[in-house]
C-alpha cells in the first residue's frame, strides 16, 4: 500500500502543481502570435502597459496557430490571433473559426488592408504587408561572374544551376505566394513554364519559407526566393546578402489579425484589435527587427523596410488565390507538373 499511496500522492501533487488558472478572469487576453518572438513580446507588453489587461501570449508560425485554432474549435482557448501570413487567416475565416468585426480604426487603413478584410468577410484584417522577392549572396554571385540579378528572368541563368532555393508551396505560405504570383503575373501556362525552368536551378525546396534567406546569407545558396523583409533582416545584420524586388513586378503577403470565434475575453480582444491598428502599435515592428510595411496610413514606415511604393506590385487577387479550392488545385498541379520533374 505504501507504494500506491506514494504513487497516488505523486499524481495528485503533479495535478495540483500544474493545473493553471484558465484565463477567464476579467482583465486578461490570450493572444496567439504569428510573427517573430521579439515583435510578439513588444506588442503584448506595450498593450499590457497601455490598458492594464494581462496578456498571455504564445508565439507560433501562422500554420501552427491555424492548426491549433482548428483543433480547439469546439472549446476555444485563444482570444486574438495577431500576425502571420494572410492565407491561414483566410482559411480560418472560410471555415468560420474567426469572428466578424469592424473596427472604428478601419478608416485609417491602406486599401490592401481593407481588401483583405473584405476577402475574409470581415473576419481578418491586414496589419502589415511584405512583398515577395529574393535575396542573393553578393560573394557567390561575384564568384560566378554574374551581374547582379534584378528580375525573375535572371534566376533562370544556367550558371545558377542548383544554386537557387525556395520553399515547398505545400509547406510554406511564402512559396505558395510565389506560385500564385507567377500565375497572376505571367498567366497560368507561362507561369508553370517559368517554374519548370526554375526547377532546374532549384537545389532544394525547403520546408520553411524564410529558410532560403538564411541559406543565402550563409552562402549555402546563391539565391533564395523569400519575402523581401526576411532577407532585409540578414542584410541589416551585415551579412553579404542583397534583397531584390523583381523588375517584372511581384506579389505580396498581407499579415493579418483575427478575433477567434468563441473568445472567452471578447471585449479585451476587441480592445486589442482596435489598438493594434493604431499608428503607435504599428510602429513597434522596426525596433523588434521586423521590417514589414504597416497597414495604418499614419504609421511610420521603417527606414530599412523595402519601399513598396518603388516596387512594381501586381494586383494580387486574395479572394481567388486564398480560397481553399484554388489553392488545392494549384498545389496538386505543382506537385504533378513541377515537383515530379526529374532534375
Amino acid at each position, binding site marked *: *500500500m505504501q*507504494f*500506491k499511496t506514494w504513487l*497516488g500522492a*505523486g*499524481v*495528485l501533487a*503533479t*495535478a*495540483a*502543481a*500544474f*493545473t*493553471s488558472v*484558465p484565463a477567464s*478572469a476579467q482583465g486578461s487576453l*490570450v*493572444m496567439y502570435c504569428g510573427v*517573430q*518572438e521579439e515583435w510578439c513580446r513588444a506588442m503584448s507588453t506595450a498593450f499590457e502597459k497601455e490598458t492594464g489587461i494581462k496578456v*498571455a*501570449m*504564445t508565439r507560433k*508560425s501562422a*500554420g*501552427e496557430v*491555424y*492548426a*491549433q485554432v*482548428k*483543433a*480547439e474549435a*469546439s*472549446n476555444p*482557448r485563444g482570444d486574438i490571433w495577431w500576425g502571420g501570413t494572410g492565407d491561414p487567416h483566410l*482559411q480560418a475565416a472560410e471555415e468560420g473559426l474567426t469572428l466578424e468585426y469592424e473596427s472604428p480604426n478601419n478608416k485609417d487603413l491602406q486599401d490592401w488592408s481593407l481588401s483583405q478584410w473584405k476577402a475574409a468577410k470581415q473576419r481578418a484584417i491586414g496589419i502589415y504587408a511584405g512583398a515577395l522577392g529574393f535575396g542573393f549572396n553578393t560573394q557567390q554571385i561575384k564568384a560566378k561572374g554574374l551581374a547582379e540579378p534584378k528580375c525573375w528572368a535572371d534566376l533562370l541563368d544556367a550558371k545558377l544551376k*542548383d544554386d537557387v532555393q525556395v520553399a*515547398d*508551396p*505545400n*509547406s510554406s*505560405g511564402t512559396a*505558395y505566394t510565389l506560385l500564385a504570383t507567377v500565375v497572376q503575373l505571367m498567366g497560368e501556362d507561362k507561369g508553370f513554364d517559368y517554374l519548370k525552368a526554375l526547377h532546374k536551378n532549384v*537545389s*532544394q525546396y525547403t*520546408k*520553411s519559407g*524564410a529558410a532560403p534567406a538564411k541559406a543565402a546569407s*550563409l552562402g*549555402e545558396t546563391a539565391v533564395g526566393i523569400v519575402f523581401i523583409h526576411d532577407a532585409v*533582416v540578414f542584410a541589416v*545584420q551585415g*551579412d553579404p546578402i542583397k534583397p531584390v524586388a523583381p523588375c517584372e513586378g511581384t506579389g505580396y503577403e498581407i499579415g493579418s489579425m483575427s478575433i477567434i470565434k468563441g473568445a472567452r475575453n471578447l471585449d479585451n480582444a476587441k480592445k486589442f484589435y482596435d489598438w493594434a491598428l493604431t499608428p503607435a502599435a504599428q510602429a513597434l515592428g522596426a525596433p523588434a*527587427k521586423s521590417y514589414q510595411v504597416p497597414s495604418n496610413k499614419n504609421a511610420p514606415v521603417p527606414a530599412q523596410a523595402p519601399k513598396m511604393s518603388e516596387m512594381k506590385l501586381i494586383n494580387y487577387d486574395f479572394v481567388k488565390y486564398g480560397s*481553399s479550392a484554388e*489553392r488545392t488545385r494549384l498545389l496538386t498541379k505543382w506537385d504533378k507538373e513541377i515537383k*515530379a*520533374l*526529374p*532534375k
Partner: protein
Amino acid sequence: MRPSTRLALLAGWLGYALIPWYLPEGWGLAGYPFGRAGTALALVLSGASPWLMPIGLALVVATLLSGRAETAGTGRALVWIGLLGLVAFFAQGFAVTLPEQGIPWLAALLGGAGQSQPGMGFGALLTLFSLLLLMCHGLAYRGVCRGDIFTTSTIGVVVLLIGLFIFFPVATILRSALIDQNGALALADFVERLFSPTIWGLGCISAGTNCGVAWNTLILAVLTGVITTLLGLACALLVLRTGMPGKRLMRAMTVLPIITPPFVIGLALILLFGRSGAVTGLMADWFGIPRSRWIYGLPGVLLAQVLAFAPIAFLVLMGVVQGIAPSLEEAAQTLGAKRWTTFRTVTWPLLRPGLANAFLLGFVESMADFGNPLVLGGNFEVLSTKIFFAVVGAAHNQGQAAVLAIVLLVFTLGAFWVQQGWLGSRSYTTVSGKGDSGLPAKLPTSATVLSAIVIVPWVLLTAVIYAVILVGGFVKTMGRDHTPTLEHYRTGFAIDFSHGLYFEGAAWPSLFTTLKVAAISAPLTALIGLLTAYLLTRQHFAGRRLLEFTTMLSFAIPGTVLGVAYILAFNVPPVEITGTGLILVLAFVFRNMPVGVRSGIAGLAQIDKSLDEASATLRARSFTTLRRVVLPLLKPALVAALVYSFVRSITSVSAVIFLVSAEYNLATAYIVGRVEAGEFGLAIAYSSVLIVVMAAGIALIQLGVGERKLGRRHVALASSAAEPSPSRT
C-alpha cells in the same frame, strides 16, 4: 475485505462526497458543495447532476460488502461493482460534455439530456482510481495472478493510464483519416491517399526523381538503427571490457549528443560541412575538393541521427554488457575456448536482447525524428516532416497527416514483430540466484581494434561539433564574424541584482518551466515504465502482448501527431487539460515511457526468476520482491529511464509545439523561434546552457540512484571496468 480494499473504498467516498468533482477554475470554492466546485454527492442529492448517481450506487453496494470475508464470492461481487462503476463513470463522462456535443442518446438515458458539464477534477480522479482498485482487488480475491493484490492493481492502473493517455488520443487522430472536412465517412479518399505515389513511388530507381516518402523513411530508419546499434555496442564493449585509455572522457562524450537540443547538431553540421562550412573550405583549399551540398539529404540526416541516437543504444547496451555473468565466459575459457570463440559463442548470443532493443529504439527514434530532417533533409523527405507540414503547412490537410501516421505506425509494428521473431523464446538469463564471482572476459584483440577504429573518429567528430557549439555562443556570428562577445548570454540570461534578484533575461521563464516539467515527468516515466516492464516480463495475464504493443505505440507516433492528438482528445471534457502544465507532463510521460519499458525488459530478461521465487518462498509479497530484489538489480535500467526521460522532456520539440501555452512555454519552442529569426548566436548560447543543465541533472540522477553492485571479485574491476586512472593504464 482486506484493510487495503477498505482503504481504496474510503478513497472513493472521499472523492465522491468531499472533494470537488470537477476541475476548478482557479482555486475558488464558491458555492461548495454545490455548483462548479460541488461534490458529486451534493450534486446528485440536489438533483443537479443525476447522471453521477450510478457511480455513487456502486460505492454504496461496495460499502455494504465491506464486512464480508475475502472469498471468491466477495471477489466476484467486487469485480462487478468496480466494472459497472467504471462503465457508469466513462458513460457519463463521454455522454455529457459541452453543449451540443457528447453522445445525446446516452445522455438522455442517464437523465442528462441537453445538459453539459465541465472537465473531471480531483474528486472524479480519486473515485475513478477507487473503482478500478475495487475491481482489481476483486480479481485478486478470485485468485487471478496468484491472488496478489499488488499485481492485479498495478496491471489495472497501467492499463487504464495507457488506455486513457495513449490509446484514446491516438484513436482520436486516426479516426480523422477516415472522415472528410465535414465529418462524413470518406473511404474512397482514404484509399486514394493511402496508395498515393508520393508515399510509395519508386522514381529514384527508374527515373531521376525522388522516391516515395515511405521508402525514404524506411531506408533511413534501418540504416540509423543498424549503425547506432553497432556504434553503441562497440562503445559499450570498449568502455566495459578493455583497458583502453581515456574511457571516462569517451563515456562522457558519447552522452553529449543526447543532451543536445535538436537543430543544434544539424546547425553545427552545416557550419562544418555545408557548402561554406569550415571543413568544406579546408578541403577545397588544400585538396581541391569542390564545394558541394552533399550534407543536405540522406547522408546529412543519417549522420546527424547517428550522432544523436547512438548514445541511446550505448546506454541500453551498457546495462546489458554489465549484466552478462562473467562466470559463463570463464566456463567457456576453462573449457579451452579462445577469447574470440568465447566472444562469438557466449558473449554475442547473450547480447541479443540488448541488440534487438537498441536497434528497435534507433529505428523508431529515426522514424519519429523531426528536427534533423527539417534542417538537413534538403529534397529528401521523410514521414515525420511530411506529417508536420500536412498539419501546419499551406495545404492544411489533417486527413493526409493521419494517413501518413498510419503508414508510420505500420512500419513500427513491423519492426516490433521482426524483433520478437529474432529473439524467439530463448532464455537470456545470466544474473541468477547462485553466486557469481567471475571476472569479465577481456575483449579479443581483433574486436578491440575494430571497435576502436570505429569509435575514435566518431568521438573526434563529436568533439569538433561540440567545439563549434561551445564557441558559437561566444562569438558574434559563427562562420563569419568571430569577434568574441557575451551579448548572446546577456540577452538570454541577464540577472538584475539592483533591487533584489530579478531574472531579466528573455530565456529565464521558459527555462524554469522546462526544468519543472522535466523534473516531474522523469520519475513518473521511470516508475510507470519499469512497472510495466516488470508486469510484461514477470507476470502472465491475458492481453500481455497487446499491452506491450500499446506501450510502443506512442513512441512510434511522431511528436506532431501526438501533439495534435492530445489537443483533440483533451481539449474537451471529460478530460480537459489543454493549456495547463499537466498536459505537458502527461505528454512527456507517455511519450518517453517506451524507453523505460524497453530498458526494463532488457534488464529483467537477465535476472533469473529464481531470485523472485526465492523471495516469494521467504513469504515476501510481490511488492516487497520488486522493491528489495528486482529494483536494486535494475539500477542501470532505472538510470537509463530517468536520464532519458529527463533529457527528452528538455529536448523534444515536435510533440509539444502545439501543447505549449503562454504560461507554459518550453525552452525548445523558444530556441526554434530564435533559429527561425536567424539568431543562431542566442539559439546556440541557450543550447549550451541547456547542455550544462542536463549534464548536471544526469550527474544528480546517477548520484541519487547509485550503481548496481553484483557480487564479483574486485581485483580485476580496478583495471577493467571501474575507474582506471589514465596514468596507470
